[in-house]
């Protein structure tokens, strides 16, 4: 992400230190992760120490300090999905992709995350891949679904 774009985002939020979280969210959305250099630039522009930026970037779940794979897989672990068998679905995803929650595979193909509730409880168990929701999954359907991504 280039410096100009970072500065634009910071300006959009009025350069106030209190806008730090909103600035980081915008960057995360565009860039899918927060590289160290970007965080330094944000700190400079907002006048916020780097330690505080680190604190924020690690405290909130929306932020990633490592690059993401081409396909972002979010397995819903909300209560409704849980009682409908989400743990079995997650086990299958881990087995097929060979990575655990919070990890990205070596080919940078998949990143796996668990989320607390996608709010589509009628469709549970639910997985979201690249923002598209797949519902009423079983471990077998999940294995097939993962196979459809290149």
């Amino acid at each position, binding site marked *: 992400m280039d410096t100009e774009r970072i500065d634009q985002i910071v300006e959009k939020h009025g350069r106030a230190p209190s806008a730090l979280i909103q600035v980081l969210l915008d960057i995360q959305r565009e860039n899918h992760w927060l590289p160290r250099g970007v965080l330094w630039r944000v700190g400079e522009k907002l006048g916020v120490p780097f330690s505080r930026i680190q604190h924020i970037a690690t405290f909130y779940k929306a932020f990633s300090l490592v690059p993401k794979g081409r396909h972002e897989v979010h397995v819903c672990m909300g209560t409704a999905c849980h009682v409908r068998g989400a743990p079995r679905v997650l086990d299958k995803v881990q087995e097929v992709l060979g990575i655990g929650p919070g990890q990205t595979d070596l080919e940078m193909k998949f990143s796996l995350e668990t989320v607390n509730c996608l709010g589509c409880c*009628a469709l549970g168990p639910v997985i979201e891949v690249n923002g598209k929701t797949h519902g009423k999954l079983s471990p077998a359907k999940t294995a097939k679904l993962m196979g459809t991504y290149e």
Partner: protein
Amino acid sequence: MGRMATPGELSKLRQEILARRDPHRPCVSICAGTGCLASGAAQVVTAFKAELEKQGLYDAVALRGTGCHGFCEKGPIVVIDPEETCHLQVTPEDVPEIVSRTLKEKQVVDRLLYVDPSTGARVARESDIPFYKHQQRLVFGPNRKLDPRSLEDYLAIGGYQALVKALFEMTPEQVILEVKAANLRGRGGAGFPTGRKWEAARNAPGAPKYVVVNCDEGDPGAYMDRSLMEGNPYGVLEGFVIGAYAIGASEGYLYVRQEYPLAVQNLGVAIERARECGLLGRDILGSGFDFDVKVHQGAGAFVCGEETALLMSLEGRAGQPRPRPPYPVVKGLWGKPTSINNVETWATVPLIIGMGASAFAAIGTEGSKGTKIFSLVGKITNTGLVEVPMGISLRDIVYKIGGGIPGGKKFKAVQTGGPSGGCIPEERLDLKVDFDELTRAGSMMGSGGMIVMDEATCMVDVARYFINFLTDESCGKCTPCREGLRQMHKILTNITLGKGKEGDLELLGELSEVAQEASLCALGKTAPNPFLSTFRYFKEEYEAHIKDRRCPAASCKALIAYHIDPERCTACMLCLKSCPDGAIDGGKKKIHIVDQEKCTKCGTCFEVCPTRFGAVRKISGAPVPPRIAEDQRAYVKKRDRAESQGT
């Protein structure tokens, strides 16, 4: 439509909108809330647009994508007014038929109607469907009638009348008195009286004052705040402005989770429009009252639903709670008096001002007035959002509205109040749902999540699940919460793995007590509840795990095995074909066997085995029967078997 400078201009505009609208003109409302969008509602909307054009009805029929209708189980939902004809689980392929049959010939499409499972009768009218019939949808009802982004739609249903009444006929003190008289209690969790909170913020010294909408809805399985924000943002904003006027705040923040992109978008449009029209900003409707708002997106931290943590986050810092007092109404955002209320609370305010406190207080119980939206999810036939009067029995919610448990299974418990709530067992199903009764039963109202569990749900696993959630979401400030929960999670995990030991339950009890006593905020104080309430009502399940290494619900993976009953297996190959691990041995006319070495216990075979065979079984607390001998594995049809035995 430009800026309106008097209430007269607003009412004139409303008259114009209503005059333009023919109440007999057919209107197609398609639920386009997050739930239905996930089931394909956007494609249905597109198909309707194309089909109306094709069949020459584009100008004769109004089409609107609305917020969530609540009946998520049957989405995408299409309701056609004025007849209220309700078609369910509509796909784009169904659309031409709906347009030609329902809109042109005023008939219904039978196969898309609701079917009453007990009688088999089809129900066409939305309000006759049992799921809706037993509800009282005062706050959530407008969702169905609105394009969330259309101010005109909101004005057409009487929107902003309450604001005019508050600004021009009432003093701020009178507004507070009215909310107090209505005895409105906060819908976000603790149930604190809203009127008292506002009064304290109004009377606290310091300026400016702030108001905040808390839409950091983090309880898994609860999505009523999202659906209100997505489906009726003007309603939330109207309540927000009324509250700001009552408190004397000139600036407000709407704290919305970034996980709710559609809510953020719709709210953004509504704020823009309200500003353009003089319903937000300087000198609202010429009343002299100034109030403007900002949206702050939450970055994913459950603890930020706690008000002091939310304030920290608004100030751009990590959301860690601080001790109270001082309460935010005295020292809140930037040290100034701040009233933080939940989305549903704000959305209820226009209703109270509109209908009057006495009419509102006539609904509900002694201590809890009005209605409450619950999200009814889990092992329930009709998953969805339901709004019911306080005091309705849990049984009515689960059976009359929710349609009971699917798959012929037995009800076990309903979990209310989010992660730090509790489980309520069958013997307490007649409990009257309100703030005080739920607390008495060892649970709480929380924000209104209701997760239904059936006999196949393991209560130890449920406790482990919630403690795991809270361990993850603990902000780390207080040791009993940060470390105590971690230990509780370890012990509970061991129990579900069959590694529980004598003394575990006592230790869990002690850790619970310390977390309750010595944590700063509500998250830590209530965190042991999932263990305490399941232990209170389901002690025998804990003991079975520890003493017999048995999971009574046959759910804990480490304590179960899958087995195919050779007497019932018909060698149909269904499980064999679906097993993702190739762990089933068998063939055509050869009785199937689960290879216990290869089996990963994913449960697929159990799910696909037709109920009329019921050959796949879960075994817990007993050894798996030995493999049957190879020479007995030939499958012979029952009838043939009987014949061969007869001769």
